[in-house]
């Protein structure tokens, strides 16, 4: 038995060494992922594209109408206004997330990279919310921010700051910012870890060489660490962009599908969902417009991500 094994195993190995064999193996391993991708990603995208050029009556598909759904989306009230409103909110979410979440994450990463006491503990604490389901995060914060029973307003009142207590999620002026901050709280750990890994990857010799040349702490950070951190920044900027423009779960869980109050937390994916599937009980679906929004979102994400990737890559410095 044991004597026959090498020769028996030799033949397939030899066979696999050939080009066709390698290709077959590649196909074999890639097939499951390709099939899943085709069924759950490519097919829906293509069908949304197809749906967007048809007329709809309730859930029944009617004739081909070309770009009419897009014309309705861009040129008719209230859709045009809602589209701009939702898009603008996505932009706000992106900018605020970049400024608050990612800048704070960078600061934390720089602090943690120095290895203060309890670094490991802090790393775990910062990363903990990332592991929580967004549904739980949304539900928890909705409870914390409840204007009557919630802990946030109660703490403010007991601290003598009752003037600050407000309906955080119910006031059109604070709702979007509050949601973005909840989102930042949830995600903060992720860019922190990515930046930290990037900083730790900077070879010690570079930092030491700079220090010997008399560079200040800030100069080391600015001229040695930051340039070498560019790949991490590229990834975080791209992920933040995609995350901000695909933002759905948190506003959906906390504010519901209508992007309330008065569309102040409406974003593109909520707008899409409302149009494609209808608002529970009160709003009818308009699958044509819904599909048109989906197509627009897809084009926007792919184009901007591709352009940004090329642009940001160019600024990256390779480690010698």
């Amino acid at each position: 038995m044991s004597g026959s094994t090498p020769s028996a195993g030799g033949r397939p190995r030899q066979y696999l060494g050939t080009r066709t064999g390698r290709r077959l193996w590649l196909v074999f391993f890639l097939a499951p992922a390709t099939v899943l991708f085709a069924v759950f990603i490519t097919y829906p995208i293509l069908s949304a594209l197809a749906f967007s050029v048809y007329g709809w009556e309730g859930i029944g598909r009617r004739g081909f109408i070309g770009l009419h759904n897009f014309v309705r989306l861009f040129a008719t009230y209230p859709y045009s206004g809602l589209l701009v409103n939702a898009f603008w909110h996505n932009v706000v979410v992106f900018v605020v997330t970049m400024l608050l979440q990612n800048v704070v994450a960078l600061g934390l990463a720089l602090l943690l990279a120095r290895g203060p006491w309890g670094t490991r503990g802090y790393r775990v604490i910062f990363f903990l919310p990332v592991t929580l389901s967004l549904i739980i995060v949304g539900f928890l914060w909705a409870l914390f921010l409840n204007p009557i029973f919630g802990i946030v307003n109660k703490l403010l009142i007991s601290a003598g700051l009752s003037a600050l207590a407000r309906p955080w999620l119910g006031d059109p002026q604070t709702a979007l910012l509050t949601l973005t901050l909840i989102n930042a709280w949830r995600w903060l750990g992720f860019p922190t870890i990515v930046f930290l890994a990037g900083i730790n990857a900077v070879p010690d010799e570079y930092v030491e060489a700079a220090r010997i040349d008399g560079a200040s702490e800030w100069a080391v950070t600015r001229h040695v660490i930051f340039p070498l951190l560019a790949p991490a920044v590229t990834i975080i900027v791209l992920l933040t962009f995609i995350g901000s423009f695909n933002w759905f779960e948190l506003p959906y869980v906390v504010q519901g599908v209508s992007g309330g109050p008065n569309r102040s937390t409406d974003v593109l994916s909520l707008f899409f969902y409302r149009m494609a599937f209808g608002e529970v009980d009160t709003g009818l679906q308009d699958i044509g417009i819904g599909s048109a929004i989906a197509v627009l979102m897809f084009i926007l994400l792919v184009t901007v991500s591709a352009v940004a990737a090329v642009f940001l890559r160019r600024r990256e410095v390779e480690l010698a």
Partner: protein
Amino acid sequence: MSRRWLVGLIALLLVVSLYPAGASGQGGVKLTFWSWRVEDKWAYDRMIRVFQQKNPGITVEFVPFKQTEYNTILSSALTAGKGPDIIHLRAYGGLETFTAPGFIAALDFETVPELKTFSRTILEGARGRKDGKIYGVPFASQTLVLYYNKKIFAQHNLAVPKTWDEFLGLMKTLKDKGVLPLANGGKDGWTLEVLSGVIAPNFYGGTAFFDAVTRGQTSFKDPTYTGALARLLELRPYMHPNFMGVDYATMQQLFISEQAAMFIGGSWEIGFFRAQNRNLDFDIFAAPPLRAGQTPWVSSFNDGNYGINAKTPSMEAALKFIRFTATREFGQMFTDLLAQNSAVPGVVIKDPVLKRVQELNRKATPYIMLVGFRWQAPTGSTLLQSALQAMMAGTKTPEQVGEEVTRGLSVWFDPFRGR
């Protein structure tokens, strides 16, 4: 010989096993019944048992889905040519989504003679707008009312107000004594639409305005309507200072836990309030009119219908079941078990609060957006709810709300175009 016996035996077995389905034509039929009423399954199972006893050979299985997913599941099934035999359907525009593409079997007074006795207003919610045909048996009517906590009212020597000013005065008294007068909030837009459905009809003149606006003789920019909306602003001082953050669940909790004296909502709450706090002593009244002596309007609507899948293979059995849901026997069970106002005429109501709902219904006006303007997207409800949030938060005036709603509806409601 023995082989012939065997063949004979097998043939006999085959015939016997096929008999119930093949021979009697109506026996052995199984109907599926889809619904979004997960919490009412026990009651439907009991009502179905009564039907099955009377109609041996037909079994009905009640399959409920989560409310928020029901429409999506039903849409996908029907477009794929599948779906249940009996379908729990919404009313008005929510029904039209399914009837317009031809998924639902049309009924008439010949196939379901029981429908002749139903009130015309209720039947309106079962008709397709396109063809005017009836597509289902209405199951309940809902009415929008004001709930009040009798104990709190008694503690402060308060009586049900007869005029709008008395109502405002009563709320001021409660507020001065440290009681939150109104549980209502603004975080969920639809609760504001309900609020307007309770308060506004007395000020815009109920059905006369409804008729005029649905015929396109006026629009929501009409000062009668925007003036009625402005009355909602008078309630703001008597809601929680942070009411814009108060969602539906919190509103219910405030009233159930007796932290708020009144709750403006729909008749569907009665059963829930009872179940949540058995000691809660509550009753209802209609929003008080401007002057004493006027009978107040209440908004009411057909809550939904039972319909038949146009593609069901068991049409005969399905029709039998649908006719059963239109009988007084079914209506009585429905009302007794679920504490809701059955749409079947002649049902005797035992619940005292529900009885009062029935009394108030004598001067009912259609719940304006649901009945008149939910036929196409954007619906009047979607537009109004969002705009009312802005109005209650103080960023839009009632006139702007009227303008926004009219403009949004003009997308599909031709008479508003250019207004």
